[in-house]
């Protein structure tokens, strides 16, 4: 119960207090973030047994807290803590971030289809307000697209809920194994829209790339996982979903990587990379929560550093070079995300490849080459020394290296037999990154499929394909 009050009630209370008082935003945000992190770490460190709570009667709200939900809560707490000192916005903003933290945590601990729906919709509404924070036509339009696509996805999810209720007589996820395929497919596709899986998740580069840096960090690291966490639960209980999900996840990985390769705007590149990494979170459901934590921390770091950069063009970065502290910060997180040995959690990426069935595992090892190419290409310019600024400018990279070493400790070191393959992959990626021509300044930008008409059309098309699949599924 303490965990629940720390993870869900405290952020809501703090958020409402900040909204009501209109001051003390950053302090409240940092404090709440630390409290949530400590609560989650405490739960993970002492390996509590999973607790199964049904609040207010047999038809009430069903909550389930296990290691998976604790890992996601840890991620949310860490990212919110990291984001707090970077914000330049006025207090109502921090109130919204705190409410977002509470809503995300509520989604992670819910074990009830309808409760998940409510939490995710709350996250979407708050995400909408945060994306358009700061105003401007581009941000507002990206936010409107985000809200409309998300709402259509959630309508699909609700139809699935109804089907599930008709079959089992309750909304609890305990009856997941008895669901008809139609209910499962509808709910899974609704969640895939929120989780940013490819084709359905094309709203993602525009929304995440266009928002302010702290918002992008929150969205890419935490908000996306509110759709993925229930999907991971689905996949772990229901083997029928595993095949289609793996295929969709790998497709998402390839498509996101290719989109990132042609992008010149660094923040859009990072957002496309999220599109790709979302696939890796889903590819092996048993390791999903750990990979989400790992990706969320690296990606949050990259977005926050990107917010400090003077310009966002990848071509410009690669030609003119970056100041040393920024370069080290980006390099550390990029190398960790590409699976370099001794940084972050390379053992995790290795076990991802090993956990997949043979044809997929081999394919995955080849495809893993794509990540270092697009992440390291902007960093190949010759670094610059900057004179202004004291020792504080080194604080950021120092913190990163510390947390990367910590992460390696928690999530598993590289097994010694896989150091050489990892280095070879990295070197190959670097060589390709050197040889590949740069996109050119101002190139890339939104794809034709990313406009509102196509986003909505794609979700409708996806639903139709789904209905066809349902006809032919045993």
């Amino acid at each position: 119960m303490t965990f629940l009050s720390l993870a869900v009630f405290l952020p809501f209370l703090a958020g409402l207090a900040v909204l009501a008082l209109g001051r003390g935003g950053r302090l409240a945000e940092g404090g709440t973030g630390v409290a949530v992190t400590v609560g989650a770490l405490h739960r993970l460190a002492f390996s509590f047994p999973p607790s199964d709570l049904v609040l207010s009667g047999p038809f009430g709200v069903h909550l389930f807290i296990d290691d998976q939900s604790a890992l996601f809560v840890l991620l949310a707490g860490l990212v919110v803590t990291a984001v707090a000192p970077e914000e330049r916005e006025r207090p109502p903003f921090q109130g919204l971030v705190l409410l977002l933290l509470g809503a995300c945590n509520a989604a992670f601990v819910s074990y009830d289809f309808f409760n998940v729906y409510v939490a995710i919709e709350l996250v979407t509404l708050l995400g909408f307000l945060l994306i358009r924070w700061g105003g401007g036509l581009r941000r507002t339009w990206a936010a409107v697209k985000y809200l409309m696509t998300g709402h259509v996805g959630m309508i699909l999810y609700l139809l699935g809920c109804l089907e599930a209720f008709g079959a089992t007589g309750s909304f609890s996820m305990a009856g997941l194994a008895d669901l008809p395929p139609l209910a499962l497919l509808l709910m899974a596709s609704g969640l895939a829209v929120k989780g940013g899986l490819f084709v359905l998740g094309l709203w993602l580069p525009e929304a995440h790339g266009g928002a302010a840096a702290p918002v992008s960090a929150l969205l890419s690291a935490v908000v996306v996982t509110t759709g993925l966490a229930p999907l991971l639960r689905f996949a772990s209980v229901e083997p029928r979903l595993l095949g289609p999900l793996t295929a969709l996840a790998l497709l998402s990985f390839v498509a996101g990587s290719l989109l990132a390769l042609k992008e010149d705007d660094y923040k859009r590149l990072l957002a496309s990379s999220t599109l790709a990494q979302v696939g890796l979170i889903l590819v092996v459901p048993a390791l999903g929560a750990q990979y989400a934590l790992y990706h969320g921390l690296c990606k949050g770091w990259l977005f926050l550093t990107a917010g400090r950069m003077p310009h966002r063009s990848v071509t410009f970065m690669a030609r003119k070079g970056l100041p040393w502290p920024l370069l080290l910060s980006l390099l550390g997180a990029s190398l960790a995300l590409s699976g370099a040995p001794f940084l972050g959690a390379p053992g995790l990426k290795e076990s991802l490849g090993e956990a997949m069935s043979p044809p997929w595992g081999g394919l995955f090892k080849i495809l893993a080459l794509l990540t270092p190419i697009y992440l390291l290409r902007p960093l190949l310019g010759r670094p610059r020394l900057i004179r202004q600024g004291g020792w504080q400018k080194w604080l950021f990279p120092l913190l990163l290296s510390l947390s990367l070493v910590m992460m390696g400790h928690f999530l598993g070191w590289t097994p010694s037999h896989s150091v050489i393959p990892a280095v070879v992959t990295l070197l190959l990626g670097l060589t390709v990154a050197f040889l590949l021509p740069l996109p050119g300044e101002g190139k890339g930008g939104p794809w034709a499929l990313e406009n509102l008409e196509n986003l909505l059309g794609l979700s409708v098309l996806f639903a139709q394909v789904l209905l066809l699949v349902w006809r032919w599924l045993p």
Partner: protein
Amino acid sequence: MVLRWILLSVVLIGLVGLVGRRNVLSKVLAMDVMNTGVISLFVHAGYRAGPRAPLLGDGAGAYADPIPQAAILTAIVIGFATLALLIVYVMDISRSCTTLDASCIERRSRR
């Protein structure tokens, strides 16, 4: 059974409006039609056992199932909040763009 198909077709009509209309405001309203269709489907799902209101002390009889109706109340509120937010910001966009055509706004936002 007929009612169920009618309600499903309301959802589909909303879908057609959502995809077919170019005007953003029409799209938003069509989305609300879809939402209303889904909500009515939930209410109808509760109705299956019987038409009577599930009130205590009302005597025995065929009661409607209160759970889907109670649950969908939240979805109504959420749908309302989404609709309100979208309409406000679409108004905001129309003021700075002087158009409601989706592809026109798209082009201007990329400038």
